[in-house]
């Protein structure tokens, strides 16, 4: 008997002695468990076409964006001016003042997408795929506008409006209601599948990746310390907002984030102006790299994969998340919200991501061989060697700080705020999927919110590799299901589009200002 008692006592003694060691290795253990348990999912989503290195999921997204672009007759370019007029409120009925405006729906959806994808994600793309990745990223952004148009039109058309005035919308709803309307089978099945992936995406890209990169940025400024500490602090604040209903924090963030976005783009523009003599060269690198790879791992295909991947991850076109955010707008015409939403990938990817990429390229962060002009790979051969060995958000920070030393502090703040606002948005998307699956109710909602906060800690403690893989995989899994639904429902969008355009032409839909 005594022996049995001794064992736990000894274990406790060992545990106490080993406490400092354990605390240090806690991050490693979280990392290991996480990588082991999500590996299969990641390999499934990113498996390449047989005999190639080209992941099928990338083709899936690009083919979809191309089909929507062609099917809707280049809607992203033809409707662009009208989209701006809609956001300005030219077509809004003054009697609807006080309802959600097009601008507000766009701004909220943007604050969910503009964030680390634009800062860290682009750095990852350019770091692995070289400057050429930028070209494919911009192309994917332009095409993605058509995907976003399709999903957000459907999101508004098939949203649920409850008697108490609340609105719920998103792919789950157009999958069930839209499929029923067209007499198609399996709508409910797709909706359930989408909801599962949406929850994973909310925990991955919308949460862990954010926490992870926020920690990377903070420790980059103040020095290295264990990730779970950042995780706990973040989790506590997120908890206070989404569970405690601490609206003041959310309100402050919602107001500061847009200014951070503007400051970020303005600083990038200033850096570009200071180096205006190199802009031509940088675009040369982008075009040359796009078709040759300039020595990056995987060559042209490597650049293309990275560009497409990061674009999709950043602007979420075809993923279905934006359809949830855009659904609350007050409009009689679903097409108008589709038009407004197509500005989102444009602002997010074509403008902001390109700025980040240009600054990284122009400030010479990527090391190339002066004789051949090809980029030199790092020791592992997995990415381009950078001046200080940085990757992810640290690379962007180094690029901006090369011109303005103080900018790393602004960037640290921006990253933390972007990460936070993206987490708040995704906690909402995840919650919508959760309640779609399990029904509404305070306890059920609380369970999801607590799980969400736990993943903040895991995300901050794990290392970038496994987190980014899982985040990508979960977000792309949403796109797999969502795009199937978009294909099935796109004739409905076309009908709406034709009807709207003819009424716009005939003057039935008129300007108010």
């Amino acid at each position, binding site marked *: 008997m005594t022996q049995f008692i001794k064992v736990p006592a000894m274990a406790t003694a060992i545990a106490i002695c080993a406490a400092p060691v354990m605390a240090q290795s806690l991050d490693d253990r979280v990392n290991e468990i996480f990588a082991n348990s999500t590996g299969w999912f990641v390999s499934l989503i990113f498996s390449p076409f047989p005999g190639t290195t080209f992941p099928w999921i990338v083709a899936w997204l690009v083919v979809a964006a191309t089909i929507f672009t062609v099917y809707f007759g280049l809607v992203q370019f033809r409707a662009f001016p009208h989209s701006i007029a809609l956001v300005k409120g030219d077509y809004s009925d003054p009697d609807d*003042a006080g309802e959600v405006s097009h601008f*507000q729906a766009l701004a909220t959806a943007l604050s*969910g997408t503009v964030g680390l994808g634009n800062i860290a994600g682009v750095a990852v793309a350019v770091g692995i795929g070289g400057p050429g990745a930028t070209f494919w990223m911009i192309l994917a952004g332009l095409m993605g506008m058509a995907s976003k148009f399709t999903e957000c039109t459907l999101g508004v058309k098939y949203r649920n409006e409850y008697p108490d*005035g*609340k*609105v719920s919308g998103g792919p789950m709803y157009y999958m069930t209601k839209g499929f029923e309307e067209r007499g198609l089978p399996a709508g409910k099945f797709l909706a359930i599948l989408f909801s599962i992936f949406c929850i994973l995406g909310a925990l991955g890209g919308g949460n862990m990746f954010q926490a992870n990169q926020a920690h990377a940025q903070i420790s980059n400024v103040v020095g290295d310390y264990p990730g779970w500490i950042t995780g706990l602090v973040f989790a506590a604040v997120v908890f206070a907002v989404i569970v405690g209903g601490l609206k003041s924090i959310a309100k402050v963030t*919602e107001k500061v984030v847009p200014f951070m976005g503007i400051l970020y783009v303005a600083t990038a523009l200033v850096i570009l102006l200071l180096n205006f003599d190199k802009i031509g060269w940088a675009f040369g690198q982008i075009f040359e790299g796009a078709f040759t790879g300039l020595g990056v791992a995987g060559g042209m295909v490597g650049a293309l994969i990275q560009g497409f991947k990061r674009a999709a991850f950043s602007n979420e076109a075809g993923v279905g998340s934006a359809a*949830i955010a855009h659904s609350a707008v*007050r409009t009689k015409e679903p097409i108008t919200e589709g038009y407004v939403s197509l500005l989102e990938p444009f602002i997010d990817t074509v403008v902001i991501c390109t700025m980040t990429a240009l600054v990284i390229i122009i400030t010479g962060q990527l090391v190339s061989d002066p004789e051949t002009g090809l980029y030199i790979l790092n020791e592992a051969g997995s990415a381009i060697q950078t001046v200080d060995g940085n990757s992810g958000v640290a690379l962007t920070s180094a690029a901006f700080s090369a011109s303005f030393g103080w900018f790393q502090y602004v960037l640290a703040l921006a990253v933390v705020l972007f990460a936070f606002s993206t987490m*708040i948005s995704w906690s909402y998307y995840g919650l919508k999927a959760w309640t779609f699956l399990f029904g509404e109710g305070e306890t059920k909602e609380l369970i999801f919110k607590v799980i969400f906060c736990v993943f903040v800690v895991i995300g901050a403690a794990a290392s970038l590799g496994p987190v980014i893989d899982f985040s990508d995989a979960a977000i792309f899994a949403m796109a797999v299901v969502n795009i199937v639904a978009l294909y099935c429902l796109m004739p409905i969008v076309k009908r709406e589009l034709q009807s709207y355009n003819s009424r716009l032409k005939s003057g039935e839909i008129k300007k108010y200002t």
Partner: protein
Amino acid sequence: MPDKIVVGYDGSDGAKRALDFAVEKAKAQGGSIVVAHVLEWSPYSFLTPTELEERHMRRGEELSRAEEHVLSPVVDQLKDSGVEIDTALKYGNIADTLIAIAKEAKANQIVTGRQGESGLASRLFGSVAGSLAQSSPVPVTIVP
């Protein structure tokens, strides 16, 4: 044409003085009054996803609260005054919306109180009374 006066009314003491002033004027001239309450609102503000979802519901709540606590008491109080009373309840920039209400009602005067802001905020953003005086197409009376 009898006078039609739009009164910018928010239930504050200043607004009550403005309303009294307008009622006296309408009585004397045989005019009518539009009691206008504007809920401050910008379509360019930023909201969280949850606020977006609840916006339509909140708007309904805000409108009925304003109707119940701001406008109805005034209508009750003035129903024996012999002056014809109309109400208007809208969202928007306060000065711009009061002007829009005046135009729509074909009013020939706007009467409003003032908040007596001095200080930095009103210098930067301007006061409602100041903006009204500057951009109204009809005469504006500001009651101190």
